């Protein structure tokens, strides 16, 4: 048992390292991904909040001052980069539609873990590099941030990332039956864009939408971790977030397992 876990760990660590090395290969590409893009997003969102407060002509919105929204905009852009999977989902779909998946399914590993380890490896290095920016910016501009809460927020975001990967895996199961489904990824990620709270703090929505959105697992991607760091929410909401993601993981993994087996059974091995 102990030996098999060691093999599993070593194997997945190798996948994660592979992702890190292959992404750092094209440094300009990587730099744009982890630094430039979130910095630009932050800039755009901060300008929006300046305009909103100027138009509203008030000191607080929903009980929080302008600095809280600026801090939210700053952290949300970086957490959203971590909590979203574009590249690996596209690659997984491509493996199936082109038939290159054949070389993976004959190996002593699962397709799920192969890409999950790569995704986590890639996001790990992204987190280390990109979170330096909001940490420095929040400190420099004295934005409301509880630094001791950052580690737990990152843990929830990574936990949510496993759910994101499971959903990607489910999309892949569909790829066995429908050849061109890259639009699924775009549609799904756009939906998550709203549900995660990247566009605006979810607690600004009126009831009953607010309660529903906060209970969905997607809030675990951006709103809950960022809300926790910027003191919009407390530990109880974080625990609810962990529970919500766990339940979703159990349900979706069970569904994915059944769908994967069914899809593989119908797969002819020449590409979907």
């Amino acid at each position, binding site marked *: 048992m102990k030996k098999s876990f060691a093999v599993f760990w070593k194997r997945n660590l190798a996948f994660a390292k592979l992702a890190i090395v292959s992404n750092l290969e*094209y440094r*300009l*590409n*990587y730099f*744009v*991904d982890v630094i*430039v*893009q979130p910095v*630009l*997003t932050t800039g*755009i969102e901060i*300008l*929006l909040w*300046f*305009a*909103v*407060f100027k*138009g*509203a002509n*008030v000191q607080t*919105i*929903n009980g929080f001052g302008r600095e809280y929204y600026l801090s939210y905009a700053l952290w949300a852009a970086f957490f959203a980069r971590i909590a979203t999977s574009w*590249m690996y989902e596209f690659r997984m779909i491509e493996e199936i539609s082109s038939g290159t998946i054949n070389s993976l399914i004959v190996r002593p590993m699962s397709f799920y873990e192969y890409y999950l380890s790569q995704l986590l490896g890639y996001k790990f290095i992204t987190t280390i590099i990109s979170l330096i920016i909001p940490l420095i910016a929040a400190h420099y501009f004295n934005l409301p941030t509880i630094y001791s809460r950052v580690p737990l927020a990152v843990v929830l975001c990574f936990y949510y990332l496993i759910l994101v990967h499971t959903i990607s895996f489910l999309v892949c199961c569909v790829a066995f039956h*429908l*050849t*061109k*489904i*890259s*639009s*699924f990824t*775009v*549609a799904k990620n*756009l*939906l998550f*864009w*709203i549900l995660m709270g990247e*566009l*605006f703090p979810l607690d*600004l*929505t*009126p009831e009953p939408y607010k309660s529903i959105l906060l209970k969905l697992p997607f809030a675990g991607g951006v709103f809950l971790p960022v809300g926790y760091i910027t003191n919009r929410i407390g530990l109880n909401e974080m625990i609810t977030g962990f529970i919500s993601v766990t339940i979703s993981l159990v349900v979706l993994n069970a569904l994915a397992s059944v769908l994967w087996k069914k899809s593989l059974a119908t797969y002819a091995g020449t590409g979907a």
Partner: protein
Amino acid sequence: MFLTLKKYLSLYKAMFKASFISDLEYRANFFTRIMTDIFWYIAQIVTFEVLYTHTQKIGDWNLKQMRVFLGLLFIIDALYMIIIHENLENMSEKVRKGDLDLLLAKPVNSQFMVTLQKANTAIIGNLILGLSWLIYSLNGLGDFNYLRLFWLMLLIPCSLVVIYSMRFIFSASAVIFTRSENLQFLWWQVYRIGMRPDSMYFPWFKWIILTIIPVGVIVSIPARALLNPPDYLILLWPLCLVPILLYATHRFWNFALKFYSSASS
């Protein structure tokens, strides 16, 4: 000149027809593309509807005016997606796989081919949705002068040229850097600046997005033409910008091609 124009028009007609047939082949993808944009529209609408529950104005405009702005954004974006987007989106892949060779070898202008070879006909459904939203939001204004819509015949084509030119420069950089997917994502961030009214930005930043990085021209100026009393200096600015940007794309394409070293060979 006329014959050349006729040749390119008939070529585009043939490519559009081929794209439509090709799009219908993958029906699930066809409908998901429509759904994708619906989610995007919802994201934009929800953001502003939620924000306006906490404020009366963002920039110069109230909620009803912002709805008109969004309607224009949806229409311009849909037209861009139908005519141009897919071609420029895939440029990086064409470079890596060497497919660009095939386009360069054709006896027509290579920039024309890389720009217009594939139309995304599924988005026509979104264009109808965008038009419906614009009509709904204009009705909500109450005292709108519908004659102002004529401005759009002039300004929407200019907006398309502005999006095209900027996007093209981002995409053509793939010829220089070979792998530049994230530069393409970077374009999306730049484009997002133009998806918000220019009046909400600081004056110096507004000046930049109307001149140096003219994403502010794309929707804000057509929206001003509909919502504000006409300021001819601002409304005619896109007309001056169009030839400058088209010339810039032409020069940049020729420059980028110098770095191209056929990946397929």
